[in-house]
């Protein structure tokens, strides 16, 4: 593929950062408005339930307890959406913790749960030297790769490896499943297209290949490889 001209890249970067800003705003609204209201409702219901001066029928009590439980479920769901819109761990702690959290979440969420493997051979300083756009792009690409790995048939473990290779950051997401089945390739093509797009914007290269039993100690499987210059040239 020919590299896209710089002004096109700049335009697309601008577009993506607007979209990310919008997501951030939505996440903040969930946090400040919806979660706040749910908390309020839950506190008020609890007070009603625990008020010694009000006599409540057993049936009413159990209804109130059900409402509290429902509110808690709604809050959990709102938290999940919030984290998806804007990875708060990335904002609070940085890229390495955010990637680790994504790995553990993906491993725990697939059915049956996968064994997460993590291998990090770059310093946090090197990762934090990446620009905010780059960090977010790496995070989103890894997040998508992890989700896909969880879907690969018969995978038992899922591995994330970060290392330095020739002044480049090499990020690998690998699983030990049965590779990319053709049926999934079409289903995932939109996700894969998104990953390619994000990689292109930060001038990173991205490729899929069959696993060689390398990073994950895998027996085959799929490897997604992202390469990004650590020392950015200006202009």
């Amino acid at each position: 593929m020919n590299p896209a001209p710089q002004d096109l890249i700049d335009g697309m970067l601008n577009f993506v950062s607007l979209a990310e800003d919008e997501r951030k705003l939505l996440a903040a609204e969930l946090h400040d408005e919806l979660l706040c209201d749910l908390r309020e409702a839950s506190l008020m219901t609890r007070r009603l339930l625990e008020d010694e001066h009000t006599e409540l029928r057993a049936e009413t009590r159990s209804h109130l307890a059900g409402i509290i439980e429902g509110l808690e479920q709604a809050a959990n769901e709102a938290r999940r959406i919030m984290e998806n819109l804007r990875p708060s761990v990335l904002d609070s702690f940085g890229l390495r913790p955010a990637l680790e959290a994504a790995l553990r979440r993906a491993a725990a969420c697939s059915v049956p749960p996968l064994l997460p493997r993590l291998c990090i051979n770059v310093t946090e300083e090197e990762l934090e030297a990446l620009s905010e756009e780059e960090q977010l792009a790496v995070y989103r690409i890894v997040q998508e790769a992890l989700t896909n790995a969880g879907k690969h048939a018969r995978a038992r473990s899922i591995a994330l490896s970060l290392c330095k290779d020739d002044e480049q950051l090499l990020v690998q997401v690998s699983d030990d499943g049965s590779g990319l089945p053709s049926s999934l390739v079409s289903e995932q093509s939109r996700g894969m297209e998104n990953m390619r797009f994000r990689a292109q914007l930060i001038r990173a290269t991205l490729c899929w290949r069959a696993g060689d039993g390398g990073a994950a100690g895998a027996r085959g499987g799929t490897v997604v490889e992202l390469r990004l210059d650590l020392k950015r040239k200006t202009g």
Partner: protein
Amino acid sequence: MSILIAEDTAFQRDYLRQLIATELTSEHALLEAEDGCQAVEVCLRSRPALIVMDIKLPKLNGIKAAKAIWNEVPLSRIVFWTQYKDEAYLRELGKIVPGETVYGYVLKNSPDDKLTQALRAVLLDEQCWIDRDVRGIQSRAGSREAGLTDVEYEALIDISLGLTDKTIARRRYLSERGVQNRLRELYTKLQVDIEQVADPKLGHTYNPRGRAMLMALKRGLINADELAEEDEKLKRWLAVEVGFKSKDER
């Protein structure tokens, strides 16, 4: 002495102020900060006995503010009060909390008494207090009948597996001080301290860890099968942990 409330919404500051005054203490002056930078400033100036810290704060988030505070005053006791439920928060906090202090972590949707418990534990009992909704805490009916809390039972398992304070701290997201205080509670409940014989030449005759295991065995709180199962769990945890341990050592 004072208590600092670092929270950006006025409504929630009012809630905290009221709860602290009625349930915790009326002796402490209550200070307030509306953003992370202010929180750091007030802490360095007034050295509060306790800080209740929201994580999503303007200007500087609560984690970065805590780091800055712990950098200057490592003994600061902070209870995080937040909507963030991802276990990653505990994992990373456990790594940055200074060994010599204790901290707490409570979800904002919790009932009043849970928050009160957390504030009391950190301020008065010098214990780490971690919301069980954020991480699964092991529990066992038998140990509760014997008067052990779930976290004390967990500590019993950890010392029975031969783990060091540092490793227990990492595994359970505690500070080392938090681990030591938790073990002290456990020894008291198992009456290890009462049994202790001090000899002028030998000093203390028992190592409390080994002695606690004996007392727990006698009471049927642990057994070989259970420990074998726990050992498997420990190995699974270590398998993941070793990955970034090698990185930390670099």
